[in-house]
């Protein structure tokens, strides 16, 4: 669709606000509706829009599947790591009270960290799923090993 000038220009204008809104939903999620999951989906929508207009290869160059594998795993590790850190500080798993000098700050930090982990994983996984579906039936590059049919 890259020959449609209108779509190309509008997409270029829209992608930055979409990402900004995703970040707002992410980091304001503890005070207003939203949170990591919603923010992750909105962020992934920006990448998918880019892929739809400028092509899959272009999108894979901007956000490589390898990077997504790493961020996806890191997000889950941040979530679980926050819980384990609370354990090391003497609380139960995911007990945010123990994360800072007092319980109110602890809860705040805990929520931010955990939601960040969720957001990171959701962006990565949703985009990866899109890459896999969109890449089906095309010539795969070395990121996606061809289906093994032994």
């Amino acid at each position: 669709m890259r020959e449609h000038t209108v779509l190309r220009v509008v997409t270029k204008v829209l992608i930055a606000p979409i990402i900004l809104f995703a970040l707002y939903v992410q980091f304001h999620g503890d005070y207003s509706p939203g949170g990591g999951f919603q923010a992750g989906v909105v962020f992934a929508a920006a990448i998918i829009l880019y892929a739809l207009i400028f092509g899959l290869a272009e999108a894979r160059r901007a956000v490589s599947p390898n990077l997504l594998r790493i961020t996806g795993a890191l997000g889950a590790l941040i979530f679980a790591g926050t819980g384990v850190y609370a354990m090391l500080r003497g609380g139960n798993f995911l007990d945010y009270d123990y994360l800072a000098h007092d319980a109110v700050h602890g809860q705040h930090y805990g929520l931010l960290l955990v939601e960040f982990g969720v957001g990171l994983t959701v962006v990565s996984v949703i985009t990866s799923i899109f890459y896999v579906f969109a890449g089906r039936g095309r010539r795969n590059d070395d990121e996606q090993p061809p289906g093994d049919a032994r």
Partner: protein
Amino acid sequence: MIEAFFAQMPALVIVLPLLAAPICVLLHRGGPSWFVYLLTTWACFALAFLLFVQVKIGGPISYAMGGWAPPFGIELRLDALNTVVLLLVTGIAAISSVYAKASVAAEIASERAYLFYAALLLCFCGLAGITVTGDAFNLFVFLEISSLSSYALIAMGSKRRALLSAFQYLIMGTIGGTFLLIGIGFLYMMTGSLNMADIASRLPAVADTRTVEAGLAFIVVGTSLKFALFPVHVWLPNAYTYAPSSVSAFIAATATKVAVYALMRFLFTVFGAAYAFDQLPLGEVLLVLSVAAMLSGSMAAIFQTDVKRLLAWSSIAQIGYIVMGFALASSAGVSASVVHMVNHGLIKGALFMAVGAMFWRLRTISLNDIAGLGRQMPITSAAFVVAGLSLIGVPATGGFISKWVLLEAVMEPGHYWLAAAILVSSLMALIYIGRVVEALYFRERPEGQPPVGEAPVLMLTATWTLVLANIVLGLYATPLIGAAERAARAVLGAGS
């Protein structure tokens, strides 16, 4: 410091695999991922053992996730019943992790091996989570974690048919999971709580409503789909047959047992035995279905030519034994169920591992292709024979103990027709195991087949560890029976 560690053990059993899975994805290599998997499962096995001892000495443990007190937050609750199941799940996982390396190297493309181990860890995490949680909704979440990852694991099988059987399992498993969720939703609607103990205390006030009865029905059907009770078992033979060998061994030995545990937990702890078995005729329904499972499963197993499929049908029959035990709703029945859960886990784990070792050599596992293998793979074949004898229920094996306590449990209320069904099904087990043994030892190798050697040492070690566990439990059954009786007392005392 040590006390703090002991207090965190219930959570660590789930947290360790949950941490290890993304670490495997980051490592991106099959070898290191296998090592992480090995370390995690053995650490969890050690934790499960400590928890088992702790519960035996000090009684039930409650753990508040995130520091939120039980009826409001998620509670992990360990008692005499689920520590036994946890010990089984972690033990099988630990032993099959030793087995997995060679088997995975042969069956999974090396660039995807790290994803395989990550999925295996998530499946393990889900199964351990179902076992330790005391929260009904949390149980559903862990059930989905284990189910989703097992669909992926089965789809990684080396034949194309693996994809189709994984899809079949996905459809059936999703229906099962949804039914369970609807049932839990009904209970939540009537009681306003998701904590199992809390639901149990609020349920008697609303027990005579159609909603609670429907909730019970949905939960029974949903979990039955997951452990493949007779009329809803069609997904199981394909799933076990086409899955990679190490997955068949792990899932066959654990996943169905954990789903049975989930149903027992709902029936005895949440609804209470008096409600489910006296007020409603659930016992009769389950007894009839378990007999049908035993006879039809064994009958189908006799006519299979693929050994893995034969073992899968035999699993359907063995689920019948386990369900029959707790469907009696007596103390002897529940403890017979627990004994057979453990023994069947060890037996089926050993059998699938032995068959996997043959598959590792031959790349096929039909009765004609394994003919005469008894002389070329003597150690593997002997493992199959001993585990097979245990499945039939020959004295001095774990299987004999299971059948003995189950027979005692069904004779107690005078159900002689059930005893007859157990004996008939055991004879049928003799026939289908006998067919494999006959092929292994009394037939010649097919013409033109090159001679094969033994399987790798690690695979043999893992297989024989499970086989020896069978013999040890057959000769010295007191600890297992004692643990099962404590489990029965714990659930029957707490319920109703």
